[in-house]
């Protein structure tokens, strides 16, 4: 299917775009979520990604490869813009108290808060990486692209993908060791402090967003 699809996309075929959307909306949505940490931001990023794909269809390289790297590349750029100011929102989410019990209306929010907490834990670690490293890591580890595809998505050489991932790995190893050492020293926390902890966990991410790299 793919070989014809890329050409049809380049030619601006309406049905090809419908197919592209159906095949990749989910992957783009989840990738955007992992970069923004916010489902509604991810939804916007996903929608805008396909609009941008349409507008940039003529810049798409010819060939027969999967179109996923291209879309995730566009989504990565979109997510970068969406992230401006999102650090604050993430911190807010993490601080948000449990939802009030209002029957049906509250159920879904509970799921969101769980996600937010889980995400805050990821951000505490992931947020210590440089943006370029984060993006390549999200593409290769969570979205399942290989190095060449990630290079295509980001418009960078394969060697750069490799070196960014090596740096990310080195830094994550170091963080893991530090964490182990701290856990041995620190007494267990009280339950009530969890919210506070999550708010702090989101801070490095916010600081990171302002890092001019």
């Amino acid at each position, binding site marked *: 299917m793919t070989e014809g699809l890329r050409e049809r996309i380049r030619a601006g075929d309406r049905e090809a775009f419908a197919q592209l959307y159906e095949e990749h909306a989910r992957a783009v949505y989840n990738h955007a979520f*992992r970069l923004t940490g916010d489902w509604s931001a991810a939804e916007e990023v996903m929608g805008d990604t396909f609009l941008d794909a349409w507008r940039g269809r003529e810049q798409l390289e010819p060939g027969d490869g999967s179109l996923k790297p291209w879309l995730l590349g566009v989504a990565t750029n979109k997510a970068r813009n969406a992230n401006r100011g999102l650090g604050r929102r993430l911190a807010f989410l993490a601080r948000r108290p449990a939802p009030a019990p209002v029957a049906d209306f509250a159920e879904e929010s509970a799921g969101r808060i769980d996600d937010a907490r889980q995400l805050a*834990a990821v951000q505490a670690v992931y947020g210590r990486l440089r943006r370029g490293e984060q993006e390549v890591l999200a593409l290769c580890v969570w979205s399942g692209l290989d190095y060449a595809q990630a290079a295509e998505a980001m418009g960078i050489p394969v060697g750069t993908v490799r070196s960014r991932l090596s740096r990310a790995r080195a830094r994550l190893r170091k963080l893991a060791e530090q964490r182990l050492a701290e856990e041995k020293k620190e007494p267990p926390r009280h339950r009530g402090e969890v919210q506070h902890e999550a708010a702090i966990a989101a801070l490095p991410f916010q600081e990171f967003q302002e890092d001019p790299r």
Partner: protein
Amino acid sequence: MRPDREDAAYEDTTREELARLLPPVPAERDVPSAPYLHHKDRLMQLIDDTADQKTTPDPKARPRLLRPALLMPAAGLALAGALAVTFTGGGTSGDTTAQPHETATVLLERIAGTAAKSDVTPVRQDQLVYVKSVTAGAELKEDGSSTLEPPQKREVWMSQRVKRINKTGEMYAGGGYTSTHELGGSPAGVYRPTYQWLASLPTDPDALLKELYRMTEPEKGQEKAQAVFDQIGSFLGRDGDASGDAAALLQGGCEDPGVTRRTTRGTRRAATGSASPASTRGP
């Protein structure tokens, strides 16, 4: 730095180790159905609009029907207002003639134009749609006379959840609050139109009508066209019977040859903005 090996096995071990070093990420989700359709529709519309610009425009082309959800929040108040104007213009008995219908059509066109320019904030799932309305009805008696009943105030809060829910909202009417329930639960859809669901409907009049015919089940003794007509009415009213509005909309935008005009005498007047989102919680 690692030696320059490009083989897949090396890539895989690196990726596996990175995944181990990071805490687990939240599980992947499907795009919820309403946004999924909404964004697809946006894409298709952009494609169509681009294609339209390239080909010579047909001067007789039928105007694209406004996305109902877009029209509604911005125009809800204006629409109700327009009908109220028609109503007062039509005489105190509530009796309508051909002239007020024309007025309504003209006004609707103007409203549609304004709504197209307005930037409407989408209503999220964790919000409620709030409608405050004042309605007054008049029953037509057998001798042809009618008396206007005193106006009734009404407020409703409607859930915007996509999933199937039992409690669909709250209502204030006649001095008391009541919850609205749907036995067996009701998902967002034709019988519980949420903002996002409405936004996902096609904007082309023919496609929209076709879709409505597909979704609407006629009640006993009802023709399909009649059921669809009522359905459009309920979308516009969102809350209760507002077939007067629907008639105006059908005249204004959507020509449905299968629909016979009903002669319900009823008009609505929104005391405050219609469908203005009221946040229950969150930022």
